[in-house]
Structure formats: structure tokens, C-alpha cells
């Protein structure tokens, strides 16, 4: 028995967010409750309770979780052993010959599996997959026994060149399944069948060591939801922006490591699609860092080469979200030369900015925003004074500036750095930021978005109706998605174009088959095709979107040359093109949810009336600026900044001269001038 409701629930570092849609009535319910650690399910259940949502009425619950992210970053991992090719037990510790920073010779690196749980056995394939040394099964059994004896719960089998011939890994897997007491056995080639032993090994090791952690959490949560009346499958957000059933999620647990950021991007895709803005730069500014992603043509970018921290590459398809080391807690200081610096050090959430009153003493970006009137002073009480004093002592006095000028300087420099970082992200993906709109969310995103857009020459800022629950929304609007890559690595001139067409069609059919087998209703299924190309002899690739599944040789060469010139300003008629990969993404689009009621229409008012005003500092000094309560704004809104628009969990700052309108979903669109 269910009532047809659809819920997205996202567990973040601080809050657990829930959004529940009733597709029949269009009704929406929201909740934001504190995240509970270490068992996140407490917060999830509390969110349903806070929203007054009856679990028995849910038709679908999609869950985004940071369980695996936290497990990796805090090394709260299951005890995991690895068995490798003889002579290669140290691959996970040696890495690729790097250091943590370009400058500075100290630092620390903890391999994901310690050396005493890394064993090796005689076996060897060569690079073409021919057997050099057969698998020593006796030695392998002994190694298994040794790891079990050492108390390992999960196991990785990682042999050299298994991507070329997995026979030894498969046989070892068979033996392991006879002996190993559970299903936590990961074969190196199974997740990622590509050369590069370090990257493949780390990916497999992360998968194995988070499997038990994730499975325990999800099965407990599923049990508790069922006990309260939820009768359907629990779905979990994957890092690729698609979703997967709870009972299957642990098998490829590593794919959930970027679950949270991916769902934010999926919400942006859905919001932008409805708003008629398919090209977006997403900008999620938090306390210590800012996540940036680039959406082109309504499609979230997927990368196979994410590095979640120093020397921790995870090479499975995940939404390509780049993290920039600047957030509200980034610390401002005057260096020994008298130059003002912002970041990279951060006060984080503990002790946090001075204005949080939790013991922070170093002045941060959030403190500067408060001093400039951009955040509501009443929320901070006494600590607001402390922030002012800190700005005076640490920045204003050394630079010979007033407190407000000092705070403005901090914000401007922070914006310059963030804009630069966003520009580098877009350029490294081969695009010009000026062709995009900025999608601002997260607690601090809307505060800086308009200034950033101006810095980047981005013409429009899109602020969704509920910036603070974007990730939960992403869970509920995400599509079913399957990505396929086929590596050809052949010169364009040597390609059999009929084979290309056959590969593209075959992968599309496989994606359609998988989607049909899932238990979630979809509105339609579509396929996107692209090719990763380069000039013969290059190592980097440029992705070229293909108009259909049967491209001609000439069109491939022309599309690639045009893309190359746009990126690098040079032509290379001397050299022919090489086609590395064909990519097919098959997406099952779910019925579109009505996002127009994320802000309750009953609360909207006919007239644009400020709920108050306050002093906000802009370049020329203090200005009395009208403050609007977002939930009251009418859908035919048309106002010109300066203005402050506040809502429950964020503040939008509209700079002087910029125009704000609303669309039918209640998204605010800021046209940036100057």
C-alpha cells in the first residue's frame, strides 16, 4: 500500500535534507534536521518525522549519502587485505612518484591498505594478456588464510595486466569465494578494466574497504524504513548522477563516494532544463570548500579520473565536480610583505569564523560578509562585534584601511580567487565560462554569485527556489543513467565507419535493455553519443559531441578540428586525427516533477514589497538596501539591485544595477551588468 509520494533525502556533513513530492496534488514537503553520526539513519528518520511524511505513503525514496566519502577521508574503513602479483605488493604505497604540494618537502601519505595486509603470490600476465607465470593456487590459498587470520573483512585481488586478460583474477576470485566468509571480494579488473596499476588498484581497494561500511548502513536504514511502513525499494544515489537499488549498491560501493556533489549537479540539470538554461556552471559554496561543475546542453559531465584527495584516484565514471579550496571559513590575513591574502587555510566549521562565536579568532570570508551587512546581524548576536574587532586588528589596521574597506577587500580577493578557479575548471574542460549561466546554491553560494558572475563575464545567475536543499532535490529528480566507453585508439583514416556505427548502436541497445529491466517508471529513453579524439601522437583528449549514431569520417575530422581550434587557437593541418574512445550515455528520463511549488504559492504576495531594509556596504560606501523575504516574492517579479533577498537557509545579494526576475518555478534570474 503506498500513496504515490516520491522522496529525496540527502545526508550532508551538518544537515540531513528531505524533499517529498506528491505528483498527484503537486504538493511539496520539506525538512532540514541535524545529521546524526556515526549512524546517519537517525537523521533520515527524523527528517521524515519533521516533514510529517508517512513512510507508508512513499512510492519511491532516493537517498544520497556521505557514508563512503567520510569513511575514505577519515580512514574509517573495514579491515581489508590485498593479494597482488609477486613483486608488486607495494604499488598502493609507492603511488606515482609525487609529493603533496609543488613546493615544500614535507607531508604525509597513508596508503589505503597497510603493508602487513598486502601480500603477493606468483602469477604474471604480460601486457598483451599472455601468461608468463601461472597462478600459484597453493600460494594464493595460503595468502587468503593469512589475511583471514589477520582479521580482514574485505579482500582485493589485483594482478598486473588483468585488464588485458582477467583469467588469473577470475580463478583467484573463484578460490576466494570458496573460502572467504562473505561477499566482500573485489577483483581489480571488474570495476575498471584499464591499464595503470596504481589507479586501478586504489579504485579496487577503496571499493573493498567501504563495502562492509556501506552495506551495514544501507541495510540498517532499509530495515528501519520498512519497519515504519515503507514497502518499496530504497534507491541510492551514485556518483555518476544515476541511482541504484539498495541491495546492489555495495557491490560497486566506490561509485557512491561522490554521491552528494553528484546529486547537486543533477538538481541543477533538472532546474536548468525547466528554466530553459541548459548550459550552467554550478557553484556550491560551503564552509571550507566550493564545488564547481559544468553542465553543457543539459548534460552533467562525467569523468573517470576523479582524485578525492592527494594521491587517491578513483577511476570510475562519476559526475565531474571540482573542488576549489575556498569557502566561507577561508582565513584572511596580511602577510609579512604587507599583501592581503585570503585562504588557502580555513577555519572550517570548528572553530569556524569569528562571527560563529565558537572560539574562532581568525577573520574569515563570512566575517567580512557580516561586517558589510550582507548577512543578517541579528543571527549572530554578540559575536558580530568580535568579528568587527578581529577585522580591525588583523586586516584594517595593518593595511591602513577602515573596517568596511578591509572587509570589502577580503570579499573582493576571495571572489577573484574563486572566479579564477572557476575559469580554470571551465578551460580545463575546454569551454569558455561566458557561454554559461551561474547556478548558485549551498549556504554561501548566492551571496557571492552575482559578483563572481561579473568577474567571469557570465551574463546570468540562476538561483533555484531552495538553494539549501539542492542535493535532496537532486536525488528525487535524477534520471536512470548508464554510461559506456569503448576504446578504439585508431587513426581516423583507418577506422571502419560501419564498425563505428555498429558499436554506437550496440551500446545504445544495451543501455535501453538495462533501463527496461529497472523497476522505475521512465518517460522516455534517449542516447547521447560522443567521441574522445586527439591528433595522432598527443596524450590528452578532446571530447567531441556527435550529432547521431552514424557519423561520417569527414564529419568527425571537421568536428574535431573545429573544437580544437576553439580551444587552442591553432590549426594542425600537418597531422591527422586519432579516435580514442566512443562514448554512449543512455538516459531513462523519469516523469518530470513539478518544481513550481518548492516555494508555497499561497505565501506569495501580489506586490513586491520589502520586509525591511538594512545598511549594506558596496564600493562607494553604505547604502540603505531593501530586504525581501523570498517566499513572499511574486512570480512576475522585476526589480533592480541593490537588494538583499533572504530565505530560510541562504541570502542572495543583488549588486546595484543588476536586474532580478522570476520564472514560473520561482527561480530567481539575475541579469548581471557591468
Amino acid at each position, binding site marked *: 500500500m503506498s500513496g504515490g509520494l516520491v522522496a529525496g533525502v540527502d545526508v550532508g556533513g551538518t544537515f540531513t535534507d528531505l524533499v517529498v513530492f506528491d505528483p498527484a496534488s503537486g504538493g511539496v514537503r520539506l525538512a532540514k534536521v541535524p545529521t546524526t553520526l556515526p549512524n546517519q539513519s537517525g537523521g533520515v528518520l527524523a527528517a521524515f518525522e519533521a516533514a510529517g511524511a508517512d513512510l507508508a505513503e512513499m512510492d519511491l525514496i532516493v537517498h544520497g549519502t556521505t557514508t563512503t566519502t567520510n569513511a575514505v577521508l577519515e580512514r574509517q574503513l573495514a579491515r581489508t587485505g590485498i593479494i597482488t602479483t609477486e*613483486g*608488486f605488493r*607495494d*604499488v598502493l*604505497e*609507492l*603511488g*606515482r*612518484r*609525487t*609529493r603533496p604540494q*609543488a*613546493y*615544500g*618537502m*614535507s*607531508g*604525509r*601519505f597513508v596508503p589505503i591498505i*597497510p*603493508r*602487513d595486509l598486502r601480500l603477493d603470490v606468483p602469477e*604474471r600476465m*604480460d*601486457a598483451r594478456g599472455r601468461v608468463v607465470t601461472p597462478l600459484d593456487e597453493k600460494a594464493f590459498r595460503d595468502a587468503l588464510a593469512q589475511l583471514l587470520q589477520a582479521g580482514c573483512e574485505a579482500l582485493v585481488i589485483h594482478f598486473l*595486466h588483468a*585488464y588485458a586478460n582477467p583469467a588469473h583474477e577470475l580463478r583467484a576470485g573463484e578460490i576466494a569465494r570458496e573460502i572467504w566468509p562473505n561477499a566482500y571480494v573485489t577483483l581489480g579488473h571488474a570495476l575498471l578494466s584499464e*591499464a*595503470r*596499476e596504481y*589507479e586501478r588498484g586504489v579504485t579496487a581497494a577503496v571499493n573493498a574497504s567501504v563495502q562492509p561500511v556501506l552495506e551495514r548502513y544501507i541495510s540498517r536504514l532499509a530495515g528501519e524504513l520498512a519497519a515504519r511502513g515503507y514497502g518499496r525499494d530504497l534507491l541510492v544515489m551514485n556518483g555518476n548522477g544515476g541511482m541504484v537499488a539498495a541491495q546492489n549498491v555495495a557491490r560497486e560501493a566506490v561509485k557512491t563516494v561522490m554521491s552528494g556533489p553528484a546529486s547537486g549537479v543533477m538538481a541543477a540539470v533538472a532546474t536548468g532544463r525547466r528554466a530553459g538554461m541548459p548550459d550552467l556552471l554550478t557553484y556550491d559554496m560551503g564552509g571550507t570548500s566550493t564545488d564547481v561543475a559544468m553542465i553543457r546542453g543539459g548534460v552533467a559531465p562525467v569523468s573517470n579520473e576523479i582524485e578525492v584527495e592527494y594521491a587517491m584516484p578513483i577511476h570510475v565514471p562519476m559526475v565531474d565536480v571540482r573542488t576549489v579550496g575556498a569557502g566561507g571559513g577561508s582565513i584572511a590575513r596580511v*602577510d*609579512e*610583505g*604587507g*599583501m*592581503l*591574502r585570503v585562504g588557502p587555510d580555513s577555519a572550517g566549521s570548528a572553530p569556524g569564523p569569528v562571527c560563529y562565536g565558537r572560539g574562532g579568532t581568525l577573520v574569515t570570508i563570512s566575517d567580512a560578509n557580516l561586517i558589510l551587512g550582507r548577512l543578517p546581524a541579528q543571527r549572530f548576536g554578540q559575536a558580530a562585534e568580535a568579528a568587527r574587532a578581529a577585522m580591525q586588528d588583523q586586516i584594517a589596521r595593518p*593595511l591602513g584601511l577602515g573596517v568596511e574597506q578591509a572587509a570589502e577587500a577580503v570579499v*573582493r*580577493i576571495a571572489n*577573484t*580567487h574563486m572566479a*579564477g578557479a572557476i*575559469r*580554470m575548471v571551465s*578551460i*580545463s574542460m575546454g569551454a569558455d565560462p561566458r557561454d554559461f549561466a551561474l547556478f548558485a546554491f549551498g549556504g554561501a553560494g548566492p551571496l557571492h554569485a552575482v559578483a563572481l558572475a561579473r568577474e567571469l563575464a557570465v551574463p546570468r545567475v540562476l538561483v533555484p527556489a531552495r538553494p539549501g536543499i539542492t542535493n535532496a532535490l537532486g536525488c528525487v529528480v535524477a534520471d536512470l543513467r548508464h554510461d559506456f566507453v569503448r576504446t578504439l585508439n585508431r587513426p581516423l583514416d583507418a577506422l571502419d565507419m560501419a564498425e563505428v556505427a555498429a558499436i554506437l548502436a550496440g551500446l545504445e541497445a544495451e543501455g535501453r535493455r538495462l533501463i527496461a529491466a529497472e523497476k522505475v517508471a521512465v518517460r522516455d529513453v534517449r542516447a547521447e553519443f560522443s567521441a574522445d579524439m586527439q*591528433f595522432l*601522437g*598527443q*596524450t*590528452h583528449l578532446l571530447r567531441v559531441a556527435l550529432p547521431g549514431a552514424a557519423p561520417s569520417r569527414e564529419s568527425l575530422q571537421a568536428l574535431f578540428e573545429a573544437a580544437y581550434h576553439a*580551444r*587552442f*587557437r*591553432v590549426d*594542425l593541418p*600537418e*597531422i591527422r586525427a586519432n579516435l580514442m574512445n566512443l562514448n554512449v550515455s543512455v538516459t531513462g528520463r523519469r516523469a518530470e516533477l513539478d518544481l513550481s511549488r518548492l516555494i508555497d504559492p499561497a505565501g506569495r504576495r501580489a506586490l513586491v514589497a520589502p520586509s525591511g531594509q538594512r545598511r549594506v556596504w558596496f564600493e562607494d560606501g553604505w547604502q540603505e538596501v531593501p530586504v525581501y523575504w523570498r517566499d513572499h516574492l511574486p512570480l512576475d517579479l522585476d526589480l533592480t539591485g541593490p537588494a538583499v533577498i533572504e530565505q530560510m537557509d541562504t541570502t542572495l545579494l543583488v549588486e546595484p544595477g543588476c536586474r532580478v526576475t522570476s520564472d514560473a518555478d520561482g527561480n530567481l534570474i539575475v541579469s548581471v551588468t557591468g
Partner: protein
Amino acid sequence: MVDPVTLAVIQAGLQQVCDEMDLTFSRAAFSPVIAEADDRSDGIYSAEDGSLIAQGSKGLPVFVGVMQFSTRTLIERIAAGVTAAPEPGDIYIVNDPYLGGTHLMDVRFAMPVWRQGRIWCWLSNTGHWPDTGGMVPGGFSASAISAEQEGLRLPPVKLFKKGVLDAEIWAIICSNIRVSDQRIGDVKAQASALMVGAERLAALLDRYGDGTVGAAVAQMRDLAARQMRAKLALIPEGRYRATAVIDSDGVVNAPLIIALAVTRAGERLVFDFSGSSLPCAGPMNSVRATTLSSVYLAVRHVFPDVPISAGAFEPLEVVGIEGTFLDAHYPRPVSGCAAEVSQRIAEAVFAALVQAIPDRVTAAPAGTSGNFGLGGTDPETGAGYVMYQISGGGYGGFAGGDGISNGCSTIGISKAPPVEIMEQKYPVLYRRYALHEGSGGAGQYRGGFGLDYEIELLRGMARASFVMDHGRVGPQGVLGGGDGAVNRVEIHRQGAPVLVPEHLSKAQDIVLQAGDRVRVRTPGGGGYGAPADRDPARVAEDLALGRYGTAEAARLWPGKP
């Protein structure tokens, strides 16, 4: 005076121009050494004297400061009429080591940025070309005795004239380098980086005004100098001596000595290298620009938050290199200067400064690029190949922590290629790729571990060459710590005794047959502080993880395990 806010914004803007040039260069390049290993750097230099205004933060550290010397030389030659004056769209190419460079493989491009018909500044970049001719593929000859043997040497000439590649100069270059067919891609990538940089810089100048940006540049220089002086004030006044040793020059089997005395006197830090060895016969000479740059990069490793600009270098004074192998002149061979000598210079700087500011400096890192070249013809394909294995080593222990294992060279940031990729491309099989057990120098904080690898030639015949270092003495421990393990090279030929190269870490053209093996163990880092002060739990952990043998640990940390 530019206000402090605009100043900081312009500084960040100039930095981004450089970072974008770095990124463009790597993404468009064809050679893996640039595209994958980022062996390149881009920067902005003043119109007057070529002094450094800003440089990309992801550029190869050894190029810090080098290009300001080559740009200055170019400006001087133009003023003297030796080199033709530029017109808009011109790009110069130069790789002459003695005109402000490193080794021949580091090819520099320079292009003026024009504003209202005058040169406002120069953009320049350096890329490591995979080959510039000479007696061995790749240019790292261990036994060259003159510059001509090392490759094609280009004085500054206009490779692009009014935006068009000069086909005649290009044809001369192509006839003198190996695998020239793909170099056109690298040349265009290198030029593309400068063009993208010029576009971005013009946008910055348009926005803030040429005058304001010019004033900001002058102020940035002063502020960087002031910041460096403030850092130097952390160093107690005094004289700190250190020595670093290079195994040999590859030709004459005797050590080369870098003798350094660092003096902090008032607001200056003086690096006096007098007493260092004389110019050598083999390729382990350094040129002036590389020597200075090595000092700068070492100081930057110690104070990483001082921005890279000419101002930061002002308080640093390098003296006493005239007449030594650290200031070699034509025709002394120099192929080892950027990869090896530079790292020994940095080691000497670390060893001197750790005495003064022990909390900020590590014990010596492995400090060798570990170049192992293997060339031959694969009988299975009939194609010739040149394989390069570079490898990392242990870093030094430091106040509060053990050294990193298998870190990259001090002067580099490049990753080593995966074993699986090497085996796909070359007829070799790695028998081992493991931690060099026992290699970390003992100490309160031990050194990191080097690498222990063994490569078997699978087919045909090949010639092996080595340009490495630290075979004679290991990376030095400090404050009572022990040295890291030395670099070892062994050639295991079937049915023959193990061969160790006469020069330990350097050799050229050692013939290998199928089935022969080469084993290399790279140095561990130096230990920091007295072993007696090490936490016994850490000794026990290293033992449990098999990083040291029981007897070895008992010898290095008596009574601890």
C-alpha cells in the same frame, strides 16, 4: 600607489594568466614529457630587463627564475643589434644553455606583448623537448665532453615571423633532431600557450589600465622582497656551512664537491659557493642561470608562501661560483645540470638552512631524477625504441614526521609512468616494483623509502644508460640523523657475475641481451634528529610492516624495537 585591494586583484589576475598558459601548453602538447609530466613552465617578464613578474604555479620548479635570465639576455642582444628586433607576431626560439638556460632539451620561446606600438612585457615559456639531437637519443649522455655532442644549439632566432612559422628555420631544426615528425605539434602548443596568455593579459590591461597594472607590478615586486626579508629574519644571524657530493661527472671517476656557506647578514642571505669543484670534463656542469634557479627553488621549498617574482629573489645573493663547475661556459657539456646538479645544489641549501631553522627544513631528499634509458630495436615489430624510466626516492625526515616514500625529484613535479604502460610500449618485463626496504635514514623521524625495481629485457638486444646520483654517499641525515641508503645499479647478465657500473650511478651504452636484468634501488631520505629520540612504537611499527629487518632495526635504533 595602487590601493591594496586592486593590487591583490591584479596579482591574482597575473597569476591566472600564467596558470592558464601552463594548462594550455600541457593540454595541447604531443610529447608525454610535457603533456603528462608537465616538464614546462610559463611566465611574464618585464620589458626593461626581463625580470620575473609572475610565473605559473604548476610550472616545473627548476624553471623558477631561469627564464628571467634568458629573457634578459634576449633583450640585451636585441639592444646590441646582435639579434633582430621584434615586430608584432614574432616569437623567438632559443635553447643555448650559456645564454640563460639549463640544458639543450629545455627549449624556450619568448614573445613580446605590444601595447600602443611598444613592448609592454614579455611572455616566455620553456618546454622539455624529447630530443634535440646529439650523441644519444633524449640528450642525457653520461659521457659527452663538449656541447656539440649534446645536441643542436639554437641562439635566439625568430621561429615565428608576424605570426607565421618560418619554414626554413623549422626545416633546419627538423633535420637535426630525432622523431621530428611530431614536434610541429609541440611547437604549436608552445606558441599557443603564449598566444592564449597574450589574449588574457590584454583583457587584464584593458580592464585596469596599463598604468595601474604597471604600478601594481612594481609594488608587487617590493612587497615580495619585503616578505622574503621578513622570512629571512627567522634565520638567526650567522654562517652555516654544508657540502653536497656528486658521484662523478660521468667521464672522470672522482667526486665533485659543492661547498656552500650561507650567511644571514642583515636583510640579505648570501650563498657562497667558493671552494666548489672546478668545471668538469663530463656533463655534470651547471650554468649560471640553473645554479641561481636551484638556490631559488630550494628557498621556495623552505618558504612556499612567498610569491614567485623577481622581488622575492632580491634579498638572495649567490657568490663564489665563478671558475667552478656551477658556472660553466661553452663548450663544457651540461646535460646533467637541470636534472642532477640542481638537486645537489638544493640539498646543500637544505643542509645549511636546517642548522639555522630546524623546524622548517627537512633532512636531505633522495634528490636524483633516476634517469635510466634503454634503446634498441624490438625484433617482434622491427621498430626502434627509446625507453626512459624515471624514478623517485625517499624524502628526508622533518620535525614532526617521517619522510615521504618514492617522492618525485626536488626540482620536478612529474609522475612516473605506470609499469603497465611501460610494458605495453617496450619489450621489457618488470620483475619487481617495490619499496626499497631499509633505505630510510635512521633518526627521531626517519627518512622515506626509495624504490626497488628490476627490469628484464624480453627480446632482442638493447643498450642501457644511467644518469643518476647518490651512489657514493646517501642523502644526508641532519641533527644526529643517519644518511639514507645509497642508489644502487646492478646489471644481472645470464651466466655472468653481477655488474656494477664503474661510476656507480652513471654509465652509457651497456649492452643487454634478452633475459638480462637491470636492478635499481633508489636512495632513501636522510633521517632527522637522533635515533635515540624515536618513539619506540614507531620503530615497532616499521618492523611489523617489514620496512626494516630485525637486525637492521636493532643496529639503527639500539634498544628500541
